[in-house]
């Protein structure tokens, strides 16, 4: 799966790597898997447009090319640069989130976008990465003793919940959940005691009735409909019901490429974005869906392998954090279209049509790749070279 370790690790174990060394270290297998998944996305978008590159597939390809360049650029940048600038990136993301709150363009019934001229920016996507970088930096230099002190955990908790609450207010329940969950994984990996998680989760469950009050009407409805979609098969439960019909009718081997009746005849809602997995599974059946699941699993394995091979805690935490975020993306999306969790509006990573998600995901994988390239670079407590 991964190429064998270079013969002479000492060659990489130094503060300054030449660009040539770095290029030599690019993990082409990872790129191949990412490209394979994206190609499945193009094909599905082509089918969603009933056999046309317009309006989705072509744009998605262009974004993929841009995203790939971005990813390799990010991978080339020294991991220590990302560590040094983690808090700055976080601050920028936070400012953007507040800006969205103050003056956002309303899209999809929620204030999620900010128009900065040439691109519609989704600050919550940036925050997903900035938060991982910042937490990784925070925990990078922490000793067990420090982590064991509850007071030490308060700043990172604030770092997590401030943006999470802002995102929830937009309202974007899916992203807020992802921020909290991927951060939780990061806390766990940093070495926070398990009993503390138990306390927080128990407390969280206690807060649910209070939080329920803050949910928007449509969010409450989605949760209630999730509990019992048959209550309202033509109303709000329509999406879930039609999605399940599409999936189920696909069967083991699917209806064939471009032959999905549910999607072709528009019974399936949002088939190019949130429900694209349903469309894919309708046309390719369980076998196709398992292949896709396998590719995602492969990607996860890459992420874990890279994380475990990093010499720096920062690299480990970043690689793992990005991998976990990616996992949350596809798990929540597929579980939601299969009726396992409420419909919360999380796209299927690399496949759903959408620019910001594609770019931010590939940016994230660029960081993982950077962690891979710089796996043997020792990082000091403050993000410098040796110490």
């Amino acid at each position, binding site marked *: 799966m991964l190429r064998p370790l270079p013969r002479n690790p000492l060659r990489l174990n130094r503060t300054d790597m030449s660009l040539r060394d770095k290029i030599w270290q690019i993990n082409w297998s990872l790129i191949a898997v990412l490209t394979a998944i994206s190609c499945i996305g193009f094909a599905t978008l082509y089918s969603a447009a009933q056999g046309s590159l317009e309006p989705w597939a072509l744009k998605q390809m262009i974004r993929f090319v841009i995203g790939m360049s971005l990813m390799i650029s990010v991978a080339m940048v020294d991991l220590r640069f990302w560590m040094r600038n983690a808090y700055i990136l976080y601050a920028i993301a936070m400012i953007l989130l507040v800006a969205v709150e103050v003056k956002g363009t309303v899209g999809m019934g929620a204030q999620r976008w900010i128009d900065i001229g040439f691109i519609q920016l989704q600050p919550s996507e940036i925050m997903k990465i900035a938060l991982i970088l910042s937490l990784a930096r925070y925990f990078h230099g922490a000793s067990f003793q420090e982590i064991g002190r509850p007071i030490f955990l308060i700043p990172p908790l604030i770092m997590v919940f401030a943006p999470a609450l802002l995102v929830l207010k937009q309202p974007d329940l899916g992203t807020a959940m992802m921020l909290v969950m991927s951060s939780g994984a990061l806390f766990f990996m940093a070495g926070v005691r398990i009993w503390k998680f138990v306390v927080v989760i128990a407390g969280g469950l206690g807060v649910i009735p209070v939080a329920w009050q803050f949910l928007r009407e449509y969010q409450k409805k989605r949760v209630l409909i999730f509990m019992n979609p048959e209550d309202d098969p033509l109303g709000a439960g329509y999406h879930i019901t039609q999605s399940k019909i599409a999936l189920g009718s696909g069967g083991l081997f699917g209806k064939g490429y471009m032959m999905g*009746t549910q999607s072709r*005849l528009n019974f399936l809602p949002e088939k190019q974005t949130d429900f694209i997995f349903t469309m894919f599974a309708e046309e390719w059946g369980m076998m196709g869906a398992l292949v896709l699941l396998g590719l995602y699993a492969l990607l996860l394995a890459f992420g874990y392998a890279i994380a475990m091979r990093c010499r720096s805690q920062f690299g480990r935490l970043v690689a793992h954090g990005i991998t976990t975020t990616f996992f949350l993306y596809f798990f929540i999306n597929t579980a939601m279209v299969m009726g396992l969790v409420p419909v919360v509006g999380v796209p299927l990573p690399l496949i759903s049509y959408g620019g910001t998600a594609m770019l931010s995901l590939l940016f994230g994988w660029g960081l993982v790749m950077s962690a891979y390239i710089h796996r043997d670079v*020792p990082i000091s407590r403050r993000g410098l070279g040796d110490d």
Partner: protein
Amino acid sequence: MYHDNDRAKLFNRRALILGGGKAVLMGALAARMYYLQVMEADKYTVQAEDNRISTRLLAPPRGLILDRNGIAMAVNQHNYRVMVVPEQTPSLDYTLDGLARIIPVGDGDRARIHKEMRRRRSFVPISVRENLTWEEVARVEVNAPDLPGIVIDVGQSRFYPLESLGAHILGYVSAVSENELTEDPLEELPGFRIGKGGVERIYDLALRGKAGTSSLEVNSVGRVIKELERKEGEPGVDLNLTLDMKLQEYAAQRLGDESAAVVVMDIHTGDVIVMASTPSFDPNAFNRGLTGEEWKDLSTNPRSPLANKAIAGQFAPGSTFKLMTALAALEGRDISPDMRVFCPGSLQLGSIKFHCWKKEGHGAQDLVGGLKNSCDVYFYEIARRVGFERIAEMAKRFGLGAPSGIDLPGERPGNIPNKAWKKKVLKQPWHPGETLINAIGQGYVTATPIQLATMTARLANGGFAVVPHVARDLVTEKSARPRSAPDWPDMELSRQSITLVRKGMFGVSNEPGGTAYKARIVQEGMWLSGKTGSAQVRRITMRERETGVKKNDQLPWKERDHALFVAYAPEQSPRYSIAVVVEHGGGGSVVAAPIARDIMIEVQKRDLARVAEAKGVDSGAPASPDLRRF
């Protein structure tokens, strides 16, 4: 290096835990896929097909109705109609308002559409107006873009080319009413009509045919993408009747404006060749929709044009019933054929005097003479000896007092009373005088023309219990197959009694002095034998008898006698029986008998076998193979 090795170990340990957790969650995803896509696949496949495919019914053409020679009596015509599909309209009223600006749409139509919309699913088109003219069709088509949900459709509507001729036998078709709904999916079709009377009703299921289906692929808003499969339905079974519409036309003309009924039937097969009831109505009017005035005219007319008097008109049979009294007496051996009864003009029974129709009396009468002269006193006397119970029994054997079993709806049973009946219905004992009155077909005895024709047929065919029918073939829900050779039960009457009664009937029509001698058939080989009847509908008081009984034409129509005549022909080898009833027509011999004579001449003229026998080749009679069934 801040215990980096320890941290790496912890990280790896925890990475395994979290990675394991993720693997479990992915396993859950795969399991869910298995559940949805393998275990529940069949259920969801059906649901996806339900989503995708909308099945529409194709109305099969209704079976034609033809007379015995193939003359079309009921056909299907193209009918342009405008329909609305509620689910495709922004609002039903919006679309109807738009339509009303182009073609007239009545308020009644609107109310009906709203009512139907509630009953049907919203994608089922509802008929707004039928029978559009070409100009109206064009106007709607031109404005189609502004009329969402409006569809022009070519349907078929029933048309009866012969109009009022045979209307009672045909019946009519009209929309299904709520309490008539069955499981047949055809009834969901807009503008679908079912038979509501006559053979249209009796053979409705066969005439309907089987619906075809068109499977359409539709998208989530119901727009048709393409037709996937088309299964043509089975057209309805064509129905051949035994009626001869040429003769029917003649009979209807001959009856004219009278309120009357004629039945001519084949005494061996039971084929009803003529069944006319006048006045009649135009069944096309029902399909078009009657105006209030038309309906009022039809329903309040004292001559009841809507009723089929041939099967639903119950009349006192009058003297035609004497045939039954005579047979009962002969079969019971209560009288000898030669026994004479002296008729002085009346018969005293207890304190009541029963009059003969001939005030002066007939003198001595035997059975044949009694029938020929229709002597009431003769029949009073033999009825007194036989008793009405046995006369009633004989009448019932001949099909009176119960529906004949003809394949038409709405047949009435008539009435043959007896002691038990009177006790049960009127809660009174039977008076001896009533035996006398009922024995001459007055009193409580009533019969329908079809019963009288059947009775005569059974007499003419030598005592076989023939049952009349109007459909040439045995029609089931799916097919029509020829009737098997008639095999009617033998009524086990003695040949002698039948011969005697027929001899009396011969005398009625063919011997000078017979009550219908003036209405005899003179053509050789066509002679008919019959029995007249004049049924009184009012009581003649003593006072009136003294001052002279009023003639029928001096009375108001409602009080005049019913004129009846039953007969069979030809005398030598009987083939047809006829019953004529003219309601309030007057005397049987002067009103009913000539009608019967004229019709029977026409019937026999059209008898192909006879024509061929007489001239060697066919001459003028239609050379249809159906006619050989005569």
